[in-house]
């Protein structure tokens, strides 16, 4: 039987300003398979992550649900945290109770709290069924393509080339330079553009 830890984040006022975080935590604690449910001001902060790591190290949890913000920005942080505590990093599930809850229902605190509970229940149910997964790797061709030969393309190509990589710079016109080559002088220094 999986031992699921649920960690509910206040995200300062972002979540706690709308959602009753303590009510969500208390609800999560009673869900099947949940061994620990905690809340914290900023779960992504060092002390927040430490709460999770400590529970893993002490054998209290082997599946983690973080009810917080978007996995797009924060999933990598929590994956790294649980991995450093010895758990497979894919045994994590996030419930987005900020972008998909507190931010969209700022005027309905009760409704938002109920929705947050549902999102957490759903994440816990999934967590119980999570399996450890292993990363796969592919080799990289150490070359780059830059499309466009104006200011942006030229500087990108030069930087990459100076780092030692082969760069193909594609430009549709006969010459590089782009719009910049058409400018007489450029602000704020009034030096020539070419």
């Amino acid at each position, binding site marked *: 039987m999986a031992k699921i830890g649920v960690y509910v984040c206040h995200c300062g006022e972002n979540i706690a300003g709308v959602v009753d975080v303590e009510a969500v935590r208390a609800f999560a604690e009673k869900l099947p398979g949940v061994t620990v449910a905690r809340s914290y001001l900023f779960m992504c902060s060092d002390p927040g992550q430490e709460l999770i790591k400590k529970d893993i190290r002490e054998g209290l949890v082997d599946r983690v649900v973080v009810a917080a913000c978007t996995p797009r*920005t924060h999933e990598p942080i929590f994956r790294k945290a649980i991995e450093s505590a010895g758990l497979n990093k*894919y045994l994590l599930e996030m419930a987005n109770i900020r972008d998909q809850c507190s931010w969209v229902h700022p005027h309905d605190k009760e409704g938002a709290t109920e929705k947050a509970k549902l999102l957490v*229940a*759903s994440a816990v*149910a*999934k967590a*119980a*069924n999570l399996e450890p*997964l*292993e*990363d*796969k*790797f*592919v*080799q*990289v*061709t*150490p*070359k*780059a*393509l*830059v*499309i*466009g*030969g*104006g*200011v*942006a*393309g*030229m*500087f*990108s*190509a*030069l*930087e*990459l*080339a*100076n*780092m030692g990589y*082969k*760069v*193909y*710079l*594609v*430009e*549709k*016109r*006969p*010459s*590089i*330079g782009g719009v*910049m*080559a*058409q*400018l*007489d*002088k*450029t*602000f*704020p220094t009034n030096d020539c553009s070419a």
Partner: protein
Amino acid sequence: MVQVGTNPNIELLTYSEVEEVEGSIGNFKVKIRKKQTYIDWDKCTGCGACAEACPAKVPNEFNAGLDTRGAIYIQFPQAVPKKAVIDIEHCLNCAGRKIGTQPKISKKTGKPILAPCEKACPAGACDRSIAWDPEGELIEVEVGTIVVATGFKVMEKERFKEYAPDSPNVLTALQLERLISATGPTGGKLLRPSDGQKPKVISFISCVGSRDQRYHTYCSRVCCMYMIKEARLIKEKYPDIDIYMHFMDVRTPGKDFDEYYTYARELGINIVRGKVGGIEKLPGDRLRVMGYDNDLGKPIEVKADMVVLATAIELPEDAKQLAQKLSLPMDGSGFFKELHPKLKPVETPVEGIFLAGCCQGPKDIPDTVAQAKGAAAAAAVPLAQGKVVIEPTISEVNPEKCSGCGVCVPLCPYNAIKLEQYGDRPRAQIDMTQCKGCGVCAAACPSGAITLHGFTDAQIFAQIEALTKAA
């Protein structure tokens, strides 16, 4: 530009366009069309004799249409590489010299009759007898990462009927830029197009197409500063010219920018806050600029000899086609969309493809350089690591269960699935570098042979149950 041209690690592919992109981060296969130049670039010295000899007259893009170039031309004096190309659509085929035909022989002299461009070329680079392939050449390169830096275009003045676009003395700011440039059509002399006379009064109009519900709601970000720059350059060279600048707001928030603006005021350039409603043509090629002065709370009229429109920056059509080839999304303003507006400003939803410069949104040169260096650093990370992680939350086929029906193959939006022989029959196989984990195949598989890791049936059903039970 010269640095780029001489860097041994950079292979310049000018007069070329990306035709097709396959693969994913780490290993993109890119087909590039090298367009036909009809000139032997190994021999061309960039002397420009051919361009001078060409009798064709084509609007010159480099001078924003203010003068003409030949059908054979070098894009501009400092071009890199400095090589001629033949714009075959506008070529007049002088002396009946179509590309790929042998010259007629003169009865008088017994010598071949050559086209003027051929005759002028001292290097033998222009030879119309060669049957150049009009399709050019298709090459394929393999790269680990891609930086998209396709830039912008400015709106044409013709879009703005209220600003008398048919008057030759109404110019876009880019046209004025060419008019005051030493390499421009007048050699840098400020002469108004209608009669070649020096203007006495010039009006600048900001936000033409920008911050306007009818066109673009965004601010083009560079217009205030380049208008001030153009006005300063003119005022410093010709202090007797009166300059009026009509701004909705003066936006100069960059480093040293406000000081730059303050100096323009000290030079005696007239700054008027308020929108210009329209321009009327007056006798003597003059123009009546009808605006409003917000500070005085009154309408203002200026009789000008020349009007400069700061037209908006927008994404060119062909960049949108490139976006489709790369599967990159656009944002609400019509530019390439970055992955996150604050935290991932050079990344895109397609891993391994990065953005730099105005294709991501209007910006000035300092910001463009900063972003370009950022994009280069981001694009170098996978190259430096030598390998990239593929998250295992992708689909996998159980070959024992797969019936080989092939339903999944055309459904995959990423062309990641192929039928390959396995045992007695062909069965589906998923390329892990192409799969994005969308799950379409797993949902469609009639045999239940495909598992989307991280989103298995058991996991999804458990979630549905939890959601419905609690409700």
